[in-house]
């Protein structure tokens, strides 16, 4: 069967959605890419390069590459600020779309900004009333075009991604209360913007930094019985980079079990162990003291007694949680979630399969994944779509 006139909808413009869309377009499939926010790239595009003098294979640059591919590919139609309203099946699928609500929380002064030069548009006015001066080239949220309905869709790839754990839930760490407590995601953005780690309170490079692992993951009390798989890699890589750029930084990592990062982990881990201190304990709480510093309480390894230690900055390595839209999407698409709230696979060996033919899942919507794993999973989904459409070579 020929690929002519085959149309696939990809839901989500993060790294998995971009990859699935691009792989399908390369096989001559028309792709309709739906993205809820005003920008493509999802979380992956916000991540920083974590290289020291050498690449540590975090994959952040792959997100940049893939975004470039997609925005330059005429077979992919991008629908920004768009959500699914309804799906009708009458032979092929017909999808009604609606405008999403503007994401004002990430905007500064009413203006949302893309992270990559390939984001198009780069600037979106999400709240006109609080935007003092509208810069050249900025697009008003209301002017982002909405296509109300797309007919004749042959298959759907759901790649709507994850939610970062809301660190406020771990109240004793004072996230959003104390300036210099940041999440791993915040730190990615800080490094991307400044090139180095700086403290939010004074914009200066911190001397003593603590990373707390498993914030929100592997947490029985929260019912989050999964390892997010990305936090040890990102924390250790950002810590190593910080140490490389500023060798005077003292870094402490509080952890339960360190997970592998990269193919040459034994070598990388040895380097980490010589560059920073590892404490196998999850801290109790922290509170601010003079000079915007943070005093942390944890249990000492040696004698089991409570220790107080002062840090300039604390990074909470937040995990990957199921997307906030999952329940809604599960209903709309009529496909099942698993016990953790991610989407379930019908075939244990094929993690892109769902409980419904013609609907496939890609990326972190299925479970925690690194950038590289999301891309591989999305390419697999594109391959499964091709098989479903009965298209061979």
């Amino acid at each position, binding site marked *: 069967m020929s690929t002519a006139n085959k149309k696939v909808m990809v839901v989500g413009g993060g790294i998995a959605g971009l990859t699935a869309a691009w792989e399908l377009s390369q*096989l001559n499939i028309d792709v309709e890419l739906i993205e809820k926010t005003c920008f493509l790239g999802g979380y992956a*595009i916000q991540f920083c*390069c974590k*290289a020291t*003098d*050498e*690449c540590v*294979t975090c994959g952040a*640059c*792959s*997100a*940049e*590459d893939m975004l*470039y591919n997609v925005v330059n590919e005429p077979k992919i139609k991008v629908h920004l600020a768009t959500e699914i309203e309804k799906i009708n099946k009458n032979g092929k699928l017909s999808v009604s779309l609606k405008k999403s609500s503007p994401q004002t929380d990430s905007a500064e002064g009413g203006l949302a900004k893309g*992270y*990559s*030069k390939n984001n198009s548009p*780069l600037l979106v006015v999400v709240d006109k009333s609080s935007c003092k001066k509208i810069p050249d080239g900025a697009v008003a949220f209301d002017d982002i075009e909405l296509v109300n309905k797309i007919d004749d869709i042959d298959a759907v790839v759901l790649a709507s991604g994850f939610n970062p754990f809301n660190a406020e839930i771990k109240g004793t760490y004072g996230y959003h209360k104390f300036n210099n407590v940041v999440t791993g995601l915040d730190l990615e953005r800080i490094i*991307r*913007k*400044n*090139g180095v780690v700086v403290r939010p309170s004074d914009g200066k490079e911190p001397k003593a930094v603590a990373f707390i692992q498993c914030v929100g993951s592997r947490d*029985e009390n929260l019912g989050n*019985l*999964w*390892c997010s*798989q990305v936090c*040890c890699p990102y924390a250790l890589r950002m810590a190593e980079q910080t140490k490389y750029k500023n060798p005077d930084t003292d870094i402490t990592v509080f952890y339960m*079990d*360190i*997970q*592998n990062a*990269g*193919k*040459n*982990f*034994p*070598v990388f*881990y040895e380097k980490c162990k010589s560059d920073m201190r590892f404490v*196998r304990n999850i801290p109790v709480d922290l509170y601010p003291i003079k000079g915007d510093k943070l005093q942390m309480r944890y249990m000492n390894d040696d004698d*089991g007694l409570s220790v107080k230690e002062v840090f300039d900055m604390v990074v909470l390595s937040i995990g990957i949680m199921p997307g906030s839209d999952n329940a809604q999407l599960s209903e709309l698409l009529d496909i099942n979630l698993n*016990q953790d709230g991610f989407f379930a696979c019908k075939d*244990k*060996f*094929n*993690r892109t399969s769902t409980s419904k033919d013609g609907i496939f899942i890609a990326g972190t919507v299925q*479970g925690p994944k690194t950038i*590289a794993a999301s*891309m*591989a*999973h999305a*390419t*697999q989904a*594109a*391959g*499964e779509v*091709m*098989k479903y459409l009965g298209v*061979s*070579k």
Partner: protein
Amino acid sequence: MTDMINAEMEEININTEVLVIGGGLTGLKAASEIAASGYKVSLIEKESDIGFQKETNYLFSVNKKELASLEKLIRQVKKNNKIEVFTQTQIKGVTGVTGDFNVTLSKENELKGKKVGVIIIATNFSVEPMNEKYGLSLSENVLTQSQMEELLAPDNKSGREKLANKTVAFVVGFAQDGYPLVMERVMRSVLAAEETDGCNAYVYAGDLKVASDGLEMIYKDTRDNGATYFKLKEAPNINPDGKTISFYDDVLRRDMELSPDLLVVEEAVCADQSNEGLAELLRIDMGPLGFLQKDNVHLFPVCSNREGIFVVGATREVQDLPLIWTDVENMSLKVKNLLGDGTRMVPKEKAVVDTGKCVFCLTCYRCCPHGAIYWDEDNKAVISKIACQACGICASECPMDAIQIGGFKDEDIKVQIQKCIETGNNEPNIIAFCCQNSAFEAGEMAEAFNMPLPAGLKIIKVPCAGKVDIDYILSAFVNGADGVLVMTCHSGNCKSEQGNTFANMRVGDVHRMFEVTGFENDRLKYVTLASNMGQDFSSAAIDMERKIKELGPSALRN
């Protein structure tokens, strides 16, 4: 400058047969997927039969129904008329490039030639007992993980009975960092052991590797069913007979001792021993720990440094079965993109050898990271239009300047260099040679986000820093540049693996020339960054400008 996108194209024919090396699970799945795309497959296996060993179902923890589906896969491959299976067969030699490989296969010392377009490497894991690292010999009460799994096999009733009312201790994570797959085997054994009446399981572990779907839940299940975990910083003291384990417990804060009836020692999951030979034969890079594929994000998941040679599953990394299936599907799509219907459009002038200048020194053959260069019967270098990635390393290394890269010809770049020099202004002239994959993008980002950039900065795009010839750098200075930046990808991130290394070497060469002549070294700098590092691009360029302002205009500037 001409762009490759608008370059003149020509059609070439390629061989669409595929060779799959390895008749284990990965190879079987690979062969069946490729055949389903309509291509002919030769599947070679060094053992006497294709299929998977009994251990596999323990390693991948598949149930009966799933095992049946995997066994069906073997039968399907055997009767698929698009797949030809060669057992007791190994690959002995290979020449040519993708679309036109000539491989030599050997079966019981008999050699046989075969032409294929693509080669897939699908070797298996090997499993190694680690008892010696713990100073233990295997015995009645000291077992390997595999032996334990045999005892626990669903159909091994007497094996399970042996565990009744026994204390079983597992040690894992001290002899190796390990993988989730290693951890999963232990945890599944613990779960199975707990089903036997009176069997108590204790696990001594380093870092629990739980970064895999569903593993944390299994960990909880094992504990809910009674298992006790001791997470220690270093291996516990184990008596050489395996009958006493003494250790300091961090939680209870005292010395403890356990006398297990059975001690199960972890097994390492390792790369296949044949990988190294295959890498040498096929001229592909070895990665860490005996796996094939360098740790380079641009190769993930299944590419090697050579076009048309793919590495899947355990060949490249320790992976569970669903991830191996992901690899196979990725490979299958890439094969489809590469082979298509057997014809391919390629740029006519991707990399062109001037046969008049070529003296057959083989420099290009040796430095090509993609194995894209061979030679013809006239003893002249030939660059494959399909295997070549147009990085330009060969063009800049060729001592005869006999190679030109389409879109980046030497003469065009030299014209660009001349155009970059502005006379009559007071701003320092800075020329940045930027790899199109990283620094060029970062430069555009710096501009798009209004980051500070020197007024006299000019960017010249190169396909890869490996194309930055010493001539270019010198020519920039001769034409009046005050400073030159060679900006490229971080080490280990080059799409051509070594383009940045070559660029760095050449910058070093020029620095040595400068030292001899007394020209300031600070005017030339090698910088690595990624495509999303607009901020770093900006600071590197501003730094150079500041330095030049200190030094004053170049002595070579008119």
